[in-house]
């Protein structure tokens, strides 16, 4: 009996370690690749304040105000959370300001703009090549483009099943909410 139990424990331990390793490794992979992690690769996301803003200790209305920051203060964005952005100032004050008070100014650090903000990823296992050299779409191209019926068919074939979409949303923690519409505000 003892022997059997010991073996069982051994196996359990082995399995547990394997499981833990898997979890740790995948957690690590997630952490490494999560596009939520900005700044990316040592790049920083800078922004300036659109108006005078309270720097709060916590991301909550009514939290303690660390200091008052003037409009146009340059800050580094560390993270976003709900209605708030975690930021630090040049003089190393850290805290939260309202996300809506942050403006970026077309000066993403690094050579090609958006790449400094995002993790680029390979386009799946299809082997479809990522174009060499970045290129935008042009209105000339669009205007002179043909209608590609095959693509239209392919698009239709990708359509989600409504039941499936609902089920997936639920699995991922999404719940419908009643939300009032926003009116246009005239200044």
């Amino acid at each position: 009996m003892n022997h059997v139990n010991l073996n069982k424990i051994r196996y359990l331990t082995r399995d547990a370690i394997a499981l833990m390793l898997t979890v740790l490794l995948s957690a690590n992979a997630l952490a490494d690749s999560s596009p939520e992690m900005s700044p990316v690769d040592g790049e920083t996301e800078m922004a300036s304040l659109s108006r005078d803003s309270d720097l709060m200790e916590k991301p909550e209305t009514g939290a303690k105000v660390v200091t008052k920051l003037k409009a146009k203060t340059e800050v580094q964005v560390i993270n976003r959370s709900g209605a708030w952005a975690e930021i630090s100032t040049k003089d190393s004050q850290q805290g939260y300001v309202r996300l809506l008070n942050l403006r970026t100014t077309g000066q993403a650090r690094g050579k090609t703009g958006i790449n400094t903000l995002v993790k680029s990823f390979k386009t799946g296992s299809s082997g479809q090549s990522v174009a060499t050299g970045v290129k935008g779409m042009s209105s000339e191209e669009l205007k002179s483009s043909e209608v590609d019926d095959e693509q239209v068919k392919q698009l239709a074939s990708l359509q989600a099943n409504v039941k499936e979409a609902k089920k997936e949303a639920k699995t991922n923690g999404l719940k419908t909410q009643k939300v009032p519409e926003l009116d246009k505000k005239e200044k």
Partner: protein
Amino acid sequence: MKIKNFKHAKYLVLPAFLTSALIATAQEKPSSTLHDDGMLVAGFELSGFGNADKNSKRLQSAFDVGKKFAKSKKDITPEDEAKMGEELAGQIMHTAPLLEDKEIQSYVNNVGTWIALQSDAPDLSWRFGVINTDDVNAFSMPGGIVLITRGMFESMRTEAELAGVLAHEITHVVEKHQVNQIKKAAGNEWKASLIQAVAEEKDNKDSEKAANALTAGMEIYTRGLDKEDEFAADRGGVVLAAKAGYNPYGLVGVLQTLGDISAKDSRVALMFSTHPSPVDRQDKLADAMGTKLDKFADGVDNTERFEVMFAVAE
């Protein structure tokens, strides 16, 4: 002028239903200047239809539909909208085809469909696609088609950001911004051009005018919608994302990403030329939102499927 270029001839067929819309408008406002030669679509040197029979037929059917509308003063039907949307999407996807990645396409369709179900048009035939271009942009078509570029998709920090983009596009469709733009196109060169083309169609002499006119549909995507429609889609987008259970501030993060890209970057040239600046959009959105949606800010930011998508793809 004679058409020699098949490629050109082919795209003439596109905005059949725009023709209808404009004719309908013309009927409502008989005072429109229908015969001003100076009001042709600028910049198009098209020339006839050549031997593209198939396309001539489609063009003819465009006129037929147009005439039908002109006579009955009917509005565009949902079927017409859907057809128009497919042709516009087909044109965009000819320039930038769907990304060949089933997982990503299926993911975006599931997210988009869930959001669209919370809109005022849950029963449209919603279709979503990621198109393979570095360009950072998203497009929506009447009838329920939303295309997001790979460049845009890659820049998403969270699923809430993706939800913000899709909800913005869904709002354009639900509020019929594209269709309405055409209807109220008073003063636009191409409106007069379209009307004139159809008016002159009976003697079949000026088919190149019709051709010019029919390129009008793409104008929505190359010139952009009304600024106010973009602001409205931003307001509608944050609300719709929240209705679907997301943190409504996702779209704000996207606007900040866009605002951080140099205007000289070719990947945003089209977007910047067709939309108000990201700063303007945030200013307007901040005015409208204030703290009204803060109670929904603890909605979903990220999901397991989003993390898996980006982790696997890394």
